[in-house]
């Protein structure tokens, strides 16, 4: 079997709707419509050219509108429509669904949309409570895990097995915060230090508040996936791999090293005919600082247990050997809900176009984007390249 799985499709339009820290988000459909208009404008296409729509579910409104209803709302006319409505998704999957539709000849220019009004709809406590419902109702929730607890159980085991330190767990937050402060739309302010992160309030040991993702009021993302390259701003979607291996943590084969993560990343790289050494930057879903360490190790950027040492010397900072989460990720930009991984896709597109301004990675030609469902249970990797 040939490694390459056919010609690439292109992400020719990309848009991100900003709500702002603590500000109530516009209504769900308003956000979706704004993302649609901005993405099509960014692609430089006429909206009449759009003949497909892939809709991402959001966390608070998983079934508010089916995709045909959204296509109708937008006045798309005859169009292929699909939705990824289920929980535990990696969120990056919607770009894969759009690529599949284009390759199957179902559509030529597919709009991909996601909007979340998360903490606006639910309030902060409601958002935390809804998140907790991700745990199994019968065999997990009776024991009171918070979402951070899932990552804390991994972190505690990582510390036990490999001697990973609190300072190393903190270093990830310090590095990614630097990137967030270069993003004009960040919802955080002020630098972090290793000491300030370690000394922050404990949420679920060993993780402190500064080692955990933000919770945002909302946001949206829009993309136009095209069969043809529109212009030099079109970014090639070269590969996508996805694999799940468990959902309940009690069923995970390990708490620190995951073969299904390697499998998903390898699938994406092989489609792109690329090696890890070709990757110029990564955008990892970062709900807790242990996650980037586990991803670095499980993908193979370093050996098992070496993630803590890998990040110690600033390797994941812009200018380092593997810049990570150059927009600030969910630790230092925002976490609007299901679309958090799509913010990573927006950033990857911006980097590959060379339009990232002060946070631009030099000579960025190939990027790896990770999306995750439910504590590394399900992982979807995109390989994107400049055209």
């Amino acid at each position: 079997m040939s490694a390459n799985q056919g010609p690439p499709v292109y992400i020719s339009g990309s848009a991100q709707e900003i709500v702002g820290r603590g500000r109530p988000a516009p209504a769900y459909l308003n956000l979706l419509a704004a993302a649609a208009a901005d993405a099509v404008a960014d692609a430089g296409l006429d909206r009449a050219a759009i003949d497909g729509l892939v809709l991402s579910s959001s966390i608070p409104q998983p079934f508010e509108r089916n995709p045909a209803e959204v296509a109708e709302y937008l006045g798309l006319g005859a169009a292929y429509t699909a939705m990824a409505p289920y929980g535990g998704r990696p969120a990056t999957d919607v770009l894969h669904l759009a690529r599949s539709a284009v390759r199957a000849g179902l559509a030529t220019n597919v709009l991909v949309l996601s909007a979340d009004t998360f903490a606006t709809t639910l309030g902060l406590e409601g958002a935390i409570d809804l998140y907790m419902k991700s745990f199994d109702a019968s065999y997990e929730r009776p024991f009171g895990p918070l979402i951070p607890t899932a990552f804390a159980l991994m972190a505690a085991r990582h510390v036990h097995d490999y001697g990973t330190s609190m300072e190393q767990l903190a270093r990830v937050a310090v590095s990614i915060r630097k990137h967030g402060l270069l993003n004009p739309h960040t919802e955080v302010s002020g630098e972090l230090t290793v000491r300030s992160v370690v000394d922050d309030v404990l949420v679920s040991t060993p993780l402190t508040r500064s080692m955990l993702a933000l919770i945002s009021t909302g946001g949206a993302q829009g993309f136009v996936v095209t069969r043809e390259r529109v212009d030099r701003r079109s970014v090639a979607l070269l590969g996508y791999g996805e694999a799940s291996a468990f959902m309940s943590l009690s069923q995970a084969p390990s708490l620190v090293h995951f073969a299904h993560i390697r499998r998903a990343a390898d699938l994406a790289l092989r489609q792109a005919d690329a090696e890890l050494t070709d990757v110029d930057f990564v955008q990892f879903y970062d709900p807790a600082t242990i996650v980037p360490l586990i991803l670095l190790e499980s993908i193979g950027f370093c050996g098992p247990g070496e993630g803590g040492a890998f990040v110690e010397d600033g390797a994941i900072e812009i200018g380092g050997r593997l810049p990570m989460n150059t927009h600030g990720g969910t630790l230092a930009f925002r976490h609007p809900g299901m679309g958090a991984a799509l913010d990573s896709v927006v950033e990857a597109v911006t980097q590959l176009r060379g339009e990232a301004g002060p946070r631009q990675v030099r000579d960025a030609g190939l990027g790896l984007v990770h999306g995750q469902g439910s504590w590394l249970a399900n992982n979807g990797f995109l390989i994107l390249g400049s055209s």
Partner: protein
Amino acid sequence: MNDGADAVGADAVRKVDPSGDVEATFWDGCSRREFWLQHCTACDAWQFYPRSLCSHCWAPTSELEWRRPAGGAVLESFSVVHRGSGPFADYAPYVVALVRFDEGPIMMSNVVGDVEGLAIGDRLELDFAERAGRVVPVFTRAGKLS
């Protein structure tokens, strides 16, 4: 520990009812302070959580049985939750743990009682705790009373 007329011995074996709800059966056992773990007679594997087939060899329900684990376990990982949400706010700080039964399966639970100096690899013993009218399986450190 069990004062009911329907008390069963630790070596009791029960068939898994092919038309029954294994989740309800599991929690019904807990309500009597009995922990029932599924064992597959076809491949001799244990499984948790309970299912209507063996997840190891796909043997049907008729090949599954309920058995009582000996109660010994090892702490795989744990986290002290400092900020409980909803009904758990009153319990914080509390210990959420992944616990491996000596029979093999892992479950999420709580470690209760004296948790000072608790460490991964510690030996644990199965116990039960009542919360909001419901009996849930929990663990204590071996040799320490809850």
